[in-house]
């Protein structure tokens, strides 16, 4: 009886400790962990995306992505996307160089004109390459702009089959963004984003992001979602992205992130 009582007491004490440890974590700590989980020096993967219009029409593209941290800011990246299929867009490439202090530079290489052309990346709300992902989403995907938002932890929720911290991200007054707020769900184990809801400037729910199939990347401490969907709830268009062959911090050639290189692809 004494043993049973002792075990119950131990259980209660341990349970209380674990619960208090879980609830004592702050939104800022979660966001720091999220940033650490996504912070990379370089990354290469293949991906395939499907654009599904509200009428059910589907467009598929296969690409390779190369990401390399650059020295233009604290968390800024060079980002090269190269289309590999279908044939009519094969070898088309976009090169994005992120900057902290000014607009990102972006070039588009079209094999037909055999030349890279500088394109406008100044409108953050524009769709990136015809997907539902905007330039701002892309930028946030590469690195969460922690300094530009206030984060509030509102609880924990099950997202699909995983527990996640539910956080409200509200832009600071000086932050230039198309969103009035974002609601984030950060996986409690991997600290990756499993769900996000984007509210437009009028406060209306605009887009919903879902990440699934989170798996560890071989030979690293990183995990990555291998499937992502982004649904525009105002237009009912959806982009689905399937990732594969992740290689993280295994080295990406710096010379790839130049206009000259994409012109010789």
């Amino acid at each position, binding site marked *: 009886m004494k043993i049973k009582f002792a075990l119950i007491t131990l259980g209660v004490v341990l349970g209380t400790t674990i619960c208090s440890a879980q609830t004592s974590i702050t939104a800022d700590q979660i966001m720091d962990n999220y940033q650490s989980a996504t912070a990379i020096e370089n990354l290469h993967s293949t991906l395939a995306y499907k654009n599904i219009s509200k009428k059910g029409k589907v467009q598929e593209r296969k690409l390779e992505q190369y990401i390399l941290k650059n020295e233009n800011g604290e968390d800024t990246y060079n980002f090269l996307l190269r289309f590999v299929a*279908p044939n*009519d867009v094969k070898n088309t490439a976009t090169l994005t160089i992120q900057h902290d202090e000014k607009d990102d530079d972006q070039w588009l290489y079209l094999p037909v*004109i055999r*030349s890279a052309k500088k394109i406008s990346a100044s409108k953050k709300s524009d769709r990136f390459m*015809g997907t*539902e992902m905007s330039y701002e989403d892309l930028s946030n995907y590469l690195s969460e702009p922690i300094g530009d938002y206030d984060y509030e932890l509102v609880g924990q929720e099950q997202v699909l089959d995983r527990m996640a911290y539910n956080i409200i991200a509200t832009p600071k007054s000086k932050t230039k963004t198309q969103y009035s707020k974002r609601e984030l769900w950060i996986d409690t184990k991997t600290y990756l984003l499993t769900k996000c809801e984007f509210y437009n400037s009028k406060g209306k729910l605009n887009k919903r992001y879902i990440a699934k199939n989170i798996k560890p990347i071989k030979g690293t401490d990183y995990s990555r979602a291998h499937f992502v969907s982004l649904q525009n709830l105002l237009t009912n268009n959806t982009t689905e992205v399937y990732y594969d062959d992740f290689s993280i911090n295994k080295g990406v050639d710096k010379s790839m992130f130049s206009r000259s290189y994409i012109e010789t692809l």
Partner: protein
Amino acid sequence: MMQFLRTLLLSFSCLIFCQTIYSQSLKLDLTNNFGLSNFQYLESNRAIKNIAELRSEHNLKLKYKTVLAANFSARGIYNYVNRERSRMFLNEAYLAANKGKLNLKLGKQIFKYGKLTGFSNLDLANRYDYFDFLETDQEELGQWGLASKIEIKNIQFDLNYVHKHVPSVVYFEDNPWARLPNQINHPNEPGVVVPVRLQDVVDINPEENRSSLNLGVNMELLGVTARLDYYNGYNDIPFRKIELDYFTPSIPMLYDIQLSVHPLSIYNLSVQRLYGDWNIWVEFGFIKNNFTTSAESVESDNYSVASAGLDRLFLFEDPAKFMKLVVQWRHALWNNKFEYQATDLDHVLDRCTIIDLDYQHTYDLSFGLRSVTSYDGFGFYLKPSVHYKFSDMVKISGGYAMLSGNDSHFFGHYTAEDRLTLKLNFQI
């Protein structure tokens, strides 16, 4: 037809070759494109009413990491009207190397000198197969040489060297654009008109050592991209001279077309800037060309061309829909010493406005519209087109090319070339 079959055989050989190489962990990429095109001319009173063509293109790229690549591109054409056009050839075969910010391409390759979204003065030097003068997008021809680029901070330097300049391919027989004379004034007997017939086309200086050089500097400063180019080489379009054959007695008299290649230099400056979603550019070029006078002597012809243009991509709520627009205005400042003929290809786009519009309505259906309006010696070209993708591999395109204007301008001179075009493409 045999050539087309040979091209097919080549593509299958490439596939087998690729399988072998792939097992050795080299990255490779093979693209095969097969096409069937048909031009249906609308004017009933003409010799060539229909031109059909089979075409295949095969591109093989072997890549070793990011530092080395080999690119081979073969093209096979079977034209039902023109035997000279029907051939199979290696259009590109080059090695590409990347080291830091230095990129080199050595071998047979396509040199496209102009970098504008529209028509650049430098495009005068590009080499094409001119079986058709209006549709040249897939007709670029390779030349042996070296292309190099190096980037230093915001400045990119380009150096292109063609070891032996080869002119564009032009056709004088079995081609709707060829207007050969069937009678001419006898050069030694004034007032006497003699019936004539083409005997041969002869390149009179084929062995000349003709190299060309292009130097370009591209820099970005305060959001403005400026590019300065110098091209020193040869005109891609050879001069034509009719030479009667006095030694072969024949009625009609026989004549040869003598082709000769002449120097061309271009000094070009272009400046472009993004204003929101609009890309706006201006270009100014000084062109040192040559001109064949009516006395068939070659004289230097220097002139300038100023150009301004804009382009923009329009996006819509439906992600399948987008529209690309390019508008360009070109104005040549001629030296007024010469009167250019309607058939002088170098001057077709001297004083004109060009509008290019592409609108994708759904992922499968898109429309195009190209118009060129020459405001000097009025000429007008309009081509609406529609494109439908059955799948990512199969695409069909149809269009109607319409030419009109004064006989003194290229488009007006060739009004009989109005035609319907139909193209079927299959890619694997």
